[in-house]
């Protein structure tokens, strides 16, 4: 029987040690690569989801914008006038006597000039110690 050659060449021994290190590094790299791929896949899925939601948001913004424009176009004066006449409603702005104004103190003005001046005078007296003429409006 042939004697087993127990001599190990120097190169093979050295290579055996190095191979273990290399193998370990390769395995480590492999693990990192797999982790990287998994992370990338997760990122891609998240980004796809974000992209999808962004597109949905853009779509909704466009819809909102279109609806606002449509609403604003419905109550222009000419369209309102047409709708009123179509329904037989002869509406108009109020007459002066139908307009009631309120002062700061909650006192109602009627449209009579005298009433307004009187109400202003009362408010002025209440605000200051002496009555002054109404200030010029600017």
């Amino acid at each position, binding site marked *: 029987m042939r004697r087993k050659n127990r001599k190990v*060449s*120097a*190169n*093979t021994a050295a*290579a055996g040690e190095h191979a273990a290190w*290399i193998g370990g590094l*390769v395995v480590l*790299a492999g693990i990192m*690569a797999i982790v*990287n791929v998994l992370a*990338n896949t997760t*990122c*891609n899925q*998240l*980004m*796809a989801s*974000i*992209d999808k939601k962004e597109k949905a948001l853009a*779509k909704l913004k*466009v*819809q909102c*914008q*279109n609806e*606002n*424009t449509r609403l*604003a*176009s419905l109550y*222009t*004066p*000419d369209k*309102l*006038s047409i709708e*009123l*006449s179509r329904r037989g409603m*002869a*509406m*108009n*702005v*109020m*007459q*002066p*006597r*139908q*307009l009631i*104004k309120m002062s700061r103190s909650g006192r109602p003005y009627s*449209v*009579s*000039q*005298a009433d*307004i*001046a*009187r109400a202003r*005078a009362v408010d002025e007296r209440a605000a200051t110690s002496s009555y002054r*003429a*109404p200030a*010029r*409006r*600017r």
Partner: protein
Amino acid sequence: MASRFEGVRFWLPVAAMAAFGIYVGQKLVSSHVRPSVNSISYGFSSELAARRGTICCKGGRPVAESTPLWRYSLDPRSMGSKSMPREVVMENIASTLSIPKEKVAVMAARTSGPGWRHQFLAESDDQAVFAAMTDRRRILGVAVDDLQRRRYLCGRSLSHVLGSVNAEGVGSCGIEQRFNSRLAGTPGKIEGIKDAYGNEIRDRRVTSVPPTPGDTVTLTVDVNLQYAAEKALKWGMAEFGAESGWCIVMDVGTAAVLALASMPDFDPVQYGRATDAMKIDRAIAYNFEPGSVMKTITAAAAIDCGRVTPETMYSTDRNDDRYYRLPHDSHAMPPRMSVKEAIVHSSNTVMGKIGYDLGPERMYDALKRFGFGAKTGIELPGEECGILWHWKKWDKASWSRVPIGQAVSVTAIQLVGAYQAIANDGVRMHPHIVEKAEDADGRTTYMPQDAAAVAVKPETARKVRQMMVGVSEMGGTARRARVKGYSVAGKTGTAQKAKDGVYLQGLYCASYCGIIPSGVVQFDMDGKRHFTDPSVVILVSLDFDHFATFHQGGNSSAVVFRKLAQYAMRYLGVTPDRPDELSPEASAEDEVELLPLL
């Protein structure tokens, strides 16, 4: 004996595997860690269009907005695939866009000629259509361009103020042009990587800059007043046979334009089809001789420098040797009249004498103080500055012609601005039609200048308004301008139109400019006098290109003024300064007189 090749046999494959591993690793790193947007195959860069800003009226009501629009173009080369025949794609395109399949077939059959790979199919703002056309499972070979459609919500109303945008989305007139840089916004940008199918790898986006939408421009125009002004103007033109007309409503205190109408108008969406007559904004870009409307300014100038008072008497004799070629009156006048009566009855001879006595230099200075001969600076492009020659260039006849509104041209906005000064106790404010401009974050990017100038003294302005009240009273030239419940200080003008240096017979420009309420009607209460404040100045002008029966300012423009002023006073809720004229109960007569508006 160890073979000398044993090491080589071992290390050579190891080296080869290592080299291969390095190569694969480098590829992995370059594609995952350092993506290149400059890659011809997969990098892309696209610009995101910014939404054009909105134009709003007073109160924030939008009148011009941009909405998304998609333009679909066919690329015959990219139509169809192994799993989707061309016929199926054509069928889907035709059904989605509601166009004949034959038309699509003809376009798909093109394989040469300019633009054959980008043939226009249709435009649509329908999101459902967009979703269908971008579904790659049904349709291939269609390019989609993101555009914007500019919509003018009031139709033709406000057309001269808003203006229009051209096919490239650039403002070509009106506010769209004047504020184009603010309305356009700033486009955004995306740079990233696409995969082999052309889909963006979202997490590899390198640059993402969102677009900045354009500013929101808010006008001082009230949309209801604008509608009323346009309706009244159209009615007046139809009723009295005028070819064109213009109308301005201005706030007295701030010189903000509440309504600005010019007829004929145009459709902003189809600006290219408008005629030249439609395109001109007669309220700011049309020089015309004002006629007797100028007499108010002359009287103000003469009273302000102390030459005359409202009670100063003048002879109406035209053949006065002290004056050079006085103008004649259009109707019979008493032998003598005061300055006030000259305004009320619109005497050319008396006002010519007043202007002559005032002198050309003082007259010219007064006109400049009232803003004539220069642009007002209103925020609309194409404004004219009128024609006002320097007084040294006036001939002797002009000394008495300019005071009655001849030999001088003005624009409507200048005239309203001058009357605003009279209404505002002599202080002329800067006319403006834009209230503000704001960016997307609400920051104000534009405000009108708050300039003011003194035209005449406050007492002078009040005296002039007192004289002008008589114009709409019995005996005045504008009885038809009376508004129940309110005092009106106004002046008519019937100016002959000129061409090639000659006045044309029978052709006139009829105007009426009024301040309502006048601000000089007083009442007593508790031993004290109270006045109302003037609210608005309204100018109505009708331009007649042929002879019409009612071509005078008092017969035509004054009637339109009354209709508009009645509505304006009720709409603005202005307290009447002559409440006794109003009936205690709401009367049908008051309603009928009003325009059938909101």
